[in-house]
């Protein structure tokens, strides 16, 4: 079954790892990157999470908005690179690249609204991730692995570029914020009323800055729209794989089932594999009941403590397996791969290689 992920890292061009928070998504993404590099491919792992998790998992100091090579990972000509998305830097790059003249770029980059707010506009971070995907795709990487942001709404990532475009397409945006797109500003009474109301709430200065910003942006929305279409096409490409990452805890199992159902129902993506991280291991065939009985029998001796310990571990393993069974029975054919809890937390390349060996064995 685990040949699924082997094939994914050997043949696909893009892998999107998504799933509930706190389940080891970053570790899985990094481990898939290691597996790809070992299979001779030039791989980059892109993390959208601003936390240091990916750098920690790779055991390196820090990551930037450009790929950094992780030395000593690849074989057969493969290599592993990693980067952490900086939405603000990416937005700045886009503004410089797409503006029709340097003055337009300058006007946008120095606008107070842009400087304080635009970097965190709803969906901007995910949109910029899509931008980076296209860029990395063209930069000669054989495989891009994306570690999506945590959170319940992992599907947001897929929708983000559409949402930003929807923002530009919004009737109010077109008539109010970019007035030249709409009716003549002077006669647009509804727009004026809206601006006055909004100014009463957030202050006239912010409104003036925002209107300036969106006016300066004029013409660039078309580029945004076109790129958004390309990102959507890339996400829907047969060479793109979706991997859902979860843990055996009942709440994350439920979240994973919900996510897979949403992805399928909305026709967005077929999940190629589900990875269940940190499954409690077993130490022989003994049942917890039997071990508890022997723990009583040997009470007060070293063996009593060992039987009790194994009983506790196996109770946890039983609960984990029940969760995994529930996950399997809710899925038709999607393979479910399990990675055992390792004796140590994974925070270096050796640990990642071990995780990878469980996933692509």
């Amino acid at each position, binding site marked *: 079954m685990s040949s699924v992920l082997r094939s994914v890292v050997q043949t696909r061009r893009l892998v999107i790892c998504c799933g509930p928070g706190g389940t080891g998504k970053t570790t899985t993404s990094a481990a898939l990157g290691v597996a790809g590099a070992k299979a001779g491919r030039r791989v980059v792992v892109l993390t959208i999470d601003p936390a240091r998790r990916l750098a920690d998992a790779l055991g390196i100091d820090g990551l930037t908005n450009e790929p950094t090579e992780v030395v000593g990972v690849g074989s057969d000509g493969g290599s592993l690179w990693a980067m952490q998305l900086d939405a603000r830097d990416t937005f700045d790059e886009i503004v410089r690249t797409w503006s029709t003249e340097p003055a337009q770029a300058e006007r946008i980059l120095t606008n107070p609204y842009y400087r304080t*707010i635009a970097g965190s506009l709803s969906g901007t971070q995910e949109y910029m991730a899509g931008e980076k995907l296209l860029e990395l795709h063209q930069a000669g990487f054989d495989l891009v692995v994306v570690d999506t942001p945590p959170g319940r709404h992992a599907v947001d990532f897929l929708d983000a570029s559409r949402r930003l475009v929807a923002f530009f397409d919004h009737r109010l945006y077109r008539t109010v914020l970019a007035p030249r797109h709409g009716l003549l500003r002077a006669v647009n009474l509804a727009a004026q009323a809206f601006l006055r109301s909004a100014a009463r709430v957030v202050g006239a200065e912010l409104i003036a800055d925002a209107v300036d910003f969106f006016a300066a942006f004029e013409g660039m929305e078309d580029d945004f729209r076109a790129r958004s279409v390309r990102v959507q096409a890339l996400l829907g490409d047969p060479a793109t794989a979706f991997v859902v990452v979860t843990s055996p805890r009942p709440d994350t199992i439920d979240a994973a089932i919900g996510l897979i159902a949403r992805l399928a129902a909305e026709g967005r993506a077929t999940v190629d594999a589900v990875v269940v991280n940190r499954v409690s291991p077993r130490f022989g065939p003994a049942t917890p009941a039997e071990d508890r009985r022997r723990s009583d029998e040997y009470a007060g001796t070293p063996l009593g403590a060992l039987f009790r310990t194994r009983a506790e*571990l196996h109770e946890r393993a039983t609960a984990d397996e029940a969760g995994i069974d529930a996950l399997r029975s809710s899925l038709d054919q999607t393979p479910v791969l399990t990675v055992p809890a390792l004796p140590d937390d994974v925070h270096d390349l050796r640990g990642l290689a071990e995780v990878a060996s469980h996933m692509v064995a």
Partner: protein
Amino acid sequence: MNPATFLSTSRLVIVAGKGGAGKTTVSAAMAVAAGSEGLAALVVEVDDHGDLGRRFDRVGPLGAREVTLVPATARSAEIRGRAILADRALRTYLDGHGLGAVTRRLASGGALELVTSAVPGLGDLLVLGQIRQLVDQDPADIVIVDAPATGHAMTFLSSPAGLARTVSSGPVHDQAELVAAMLTDPKRCQVVLVALPEETPVNEAIEAAEALSELGVSLGMVVANGCTPTDAELADAIEAASVESGLAPPDIEGLLAAGTYAYGRQVDEADQRARLGAGVGAAVAQLPRLAVDDIGARETALLARTLLG
């Protein structure tokens, strides 16, 4: 500061941490602990499908209307709970500022969504504004907030200061200043950080503690959740069983492997707890890992007693 003193000296406690760390459980346990100290508590969740109700054996998420979670008895003050939702907060705010008519007219065109997407952090600010109102007006002795899990809880806490700078005038500016003043006043507001005793969560908790200190928000307490204490008896047992082969059952290898694995995890976890304490520069309270995953009122009460020690 011990947890009982901490609770009795805090008016607003914001429980923050990454998703999966057990913020909701800790919020509920703190409320029960406060109640048993004779403090009437209001516990608030900022999530439209949160589990806070479940921690008190209620079915379904809490709504905007407050409910009694634990009635007042001889052994506990009353504990009430409610939710505050970001999407409704803007409407409530506009209504409260005499902008109700504008709101209704605009809401139909999706303008409210446009405004909240064009002014990031506005939703968080309005939620915190409502919390500030509760802190000022609610009869409870302590208000406990289960902060949102998405992304960094720090975004939630930093939006007021950010908006106070960005929005230079008007009611949003005033609101942002008032909320920021509340958050940075240690007499009024304390944050509790919840983290699991593992490598990455501990790193994140240390980063969060630094971020709080930059924001000027007081970190009152850190809770290491899901702890398994180091079992010295187990270490002795592994050593003894390895030599006393006379006692050994046929499957001694599996037993020793289980013991070694469990003890190794315990030692690793103790290291992480020590690193957490050193890294955050605050007292670390420990809550045990429970055998059950579904935490109801009984487990919440147990954790509350553990918190109070």
